[in-house]
């Protein structure tokens, strides 16, 4: 081997990991796209789309009473769940150093709030606590992780300079105040997500906006659907005006009075669910010998196809999300658009971000028919706009030379390469979310894990549902761990409060 080629070799490996990771993800994404079932099945998508468009232009509220009630319910669930999640998340974050706590948090946030809702519907029926717990548990897992990581990142200097202090005082006088701002910023962002999740709970029967949104869209009453959609957008767009710290206790009190978190179901039922219903049928019937064939059948008929389809959808969606974000981030970047056009560009990105994937996929299903295409587009639109919005905003900090090139050259030779590291970091953060959502979208009929979980609940086979849900959580934990590994290895840092 000559000296020069050895140099070259060294040079390549030094650049390697980042592009290799990107290339690997692209390759897997392309393979997933090839395997995915993405045809347009509806023969006349244009007709339905026109009707939807007309509906969007002429929103109508048929029953104001129902409307206001649904709105208040949506907010009440969100406030109560956020309070509970913050409390539990905070307590867990104090011991987040422990591997077992980290694993526990990853597990509870690996299960989507709709799956939690299906579980609690069995245990506590259509009650307030069902909605609150379904939202609070996964969010507690998310908040514990973010709080824990924020505490780790706080500068250790002030703490080390304390002369005498026990752990508790040190935490409250140094770590917590230093992390406080980020903590609050993150919580207010999470509350926005919580409102969206609360709306989506309506799709399984809780009395939030989603309950009426689902019926309106399914029955083609698009004027009503549009009105509900605008309320959701308005609610989130005006969040920073009405979500004031001083008013929080008032809101919370109102939420508790409006929907008291009471359960009116016997605890025997709950006990039976956890001790009998979710025990695998062969064990319940004392025929241990059949456990293996029960598992094999479940694996062959549901688990294996469910996991494979979830992976296919997730990986294909990750690639399309990436492409979409790369295409769209200039809409919010001062290096490409200015003034009103940037404001419009960013408004588009924010609207995309505000519409939950589940809702987008539901609409897509009506227009495009039941292939994986609507799910893929919904995931790409929602997550792509989030990533694009943030990459665009981060690109503000790039300072360009006076004589920098413009347009396409600027994009490909300067801005994109300089933003790529941050872009990849954001994308890897979104990966876990995309996997979670890929599984849940199955509830709409795509053949991912959610489809089989929904079927198991419909058939009252909670033992199957439990096993499938655990598997979907494990899949998420795997994606999370892999993303974390890559971020560490590639030295990708982003401030977590932005996600």
């Amino acid at each position: 081997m000559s000296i020069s080629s050895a140099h070259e070799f060294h040079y390549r490996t030094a650049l390697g990991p980042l592009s290799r990771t990107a290339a690997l993800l692209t390759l897997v994404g392309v393979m997933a796209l090839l395997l995915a079932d993405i045809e347009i099945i509806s023969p006349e998508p244009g007709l339905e789309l026109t009707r939807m468009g007309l509906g969007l232009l002429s929103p109508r509220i048929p029953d104001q009473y129902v409307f206001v009630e649904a709105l208040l319910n949506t907010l009440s669930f969100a406030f109560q769940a956020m309070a509970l999640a913050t409390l539990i998340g905070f307590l867990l974050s104090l011991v987040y150093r422990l591997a077992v706590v980290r694993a526990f948090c990853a597990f509870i946030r690996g299960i989507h709030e709709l799956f939690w809702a299906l579980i609690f519907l069995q245990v506590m029926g259509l009650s307030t606590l069902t909605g609150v717990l379904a939202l609070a548990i996964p969010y507690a897992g998310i908040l514990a992780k973010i709080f824990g990581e924020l505490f780790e990142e706080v500068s250790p200097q002030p703490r080390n300079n304390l002369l005498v202090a026990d752990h508790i005082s040190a935490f409250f006088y140094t770590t917590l105040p230093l992390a406080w701002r980020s903590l609050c910023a993150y919580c207010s962002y999470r509350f926005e997500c919580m409102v969206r999740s609360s709306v989506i709970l309506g799709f399984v029967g809780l009395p939030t906006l989603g309950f009426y949104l689902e019926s309106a869209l399914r029955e083609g009453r698009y004027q009503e659907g549009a009105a509900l959609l605008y309320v959701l957008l308005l609610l989130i767009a005006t969040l920073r005006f009405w979500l004031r710290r001083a008013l929080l206790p008032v809101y919370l009190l109102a939420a508790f009075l409006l929907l008291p978190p009471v359960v009116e179901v016997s605890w025997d039922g709950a006990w039976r669910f956890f001790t009998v219903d979710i025990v695998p049928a062969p064990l319940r019937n004392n025929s241990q010998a059949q456990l293996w064939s029960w598992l094999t059948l479940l694996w062959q008929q549901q688990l294996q196809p469910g996991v494979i389809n979830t992976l296919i959808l997730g990986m294909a969606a990750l690639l399309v999300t990436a492409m979409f974000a790369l295409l769209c981030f200039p809409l919010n970047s001062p290096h490409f658009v200015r003034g009103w056009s940037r404001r419009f560009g960013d408004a588009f990105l924010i609207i995309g971000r505000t519409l939950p994937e589940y809702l987008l996929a539901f609409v897509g299903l009506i227009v495009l028919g039941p292939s994986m295409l609507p799910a893929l587009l919904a995931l790409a639109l929602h997550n792509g706009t989030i990533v694009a919005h943030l990459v665009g905003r981060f690109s503000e900090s790039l300072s360009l030379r006076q004589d920098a090139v413009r347009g396409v050259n600027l994009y490909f030779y300067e801005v994109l390469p300089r933003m790529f590291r941050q872009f990849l970091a954001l994308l890897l953060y979104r990966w876990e979310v995309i996997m979670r959502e890929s599984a849940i979208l199955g509830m709409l009929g795509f053949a991912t894990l959610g489809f089989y979980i929904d079927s198991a609940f419909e058939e009252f086979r909670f033992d199957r549902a439990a096993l499938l849900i655990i598997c979907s959580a494990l899949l998420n934990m795997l994606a999370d761990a892999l993303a974390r590994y890559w971020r560490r290895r590639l030295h990708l840092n982003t401030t977590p409060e932005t996600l």
Partner: protein
Amino acid sequence: MRLLTVLAALLTSLTFSFSTVAEGFRFTAIPDQDESQLQARFGKVARYLERELGVPVTYVPVKSYAAAVTAFRNNQVQLAWFGGLSGVKARDLVSGSRAIAQGYEDQFFKTYLIAHHSSGLLGQSTGDKFPKAIQGKTFTFGSKGSTSGRLMPEFYVRKHLGQAPDKAFDRVGFSGDHSRTIALVQSGAYAVGAVNYKVWERALADGKIDRNKVDVIWQTPAYPDYQWSVRGDVDQRFGAGFADRIQSVLLAIDDPELLEAFPRQSFVKADNDDYRPIRDTAVTIGLIDG
């Protein structure tokens, strides 16, 4: 001042409450078709029951067949309008519960297989014979837990095509309810669908169906379907003989407007044994463990 406004808003909002927290007698129904129709139908039923039974009666709308069964199981509703299969499941889960009334037509209910004109299946009547030409087409059931939209059509597909639906068809979907099944097959998103014959005839009468686009190609043999089921413990809670009173009140419905909402010509007595064939069929195709 602002605080006062908020508090005032809060107090007025207290008048709203979560429907299921309300006390009194509650019932639900499987969401087998357009929700707006269900609201209209069961709103009338609630007012009728309230008048006849002398207790406050609330209709609790739910989003899935399973949710209706769960509400019954958890005693959040005491009475329900179930399909054949959901009724069997619900009564399996609540001991002492019983079927008390069914529609006259529910004694010999049937499922229509409907097809889109592009499938080439329209107009070639096979009479009573199962149209085997549907093999390899796309096919949509109704809800996963439906009797007329899932259980019976799947049974006959397996019987005549000798395969599970996902093997026999190019693509299998679950539309969620009968109205949606009709819409999906009418638009051509699926070539063939299985639909409750009553919902089909209602949609036909309402002018929602273009028979040049979608039409019936086959009907199943008769089977027992929808019924009112009541929990066994209502007598304890609402007084002795309450279940029997509900039964006689339901059987006495003769208001044409109310019957038309279902649509059934009248209600007749039913008991749990009437649904044994449904249970056996569900066990046969593996929807219930024997």
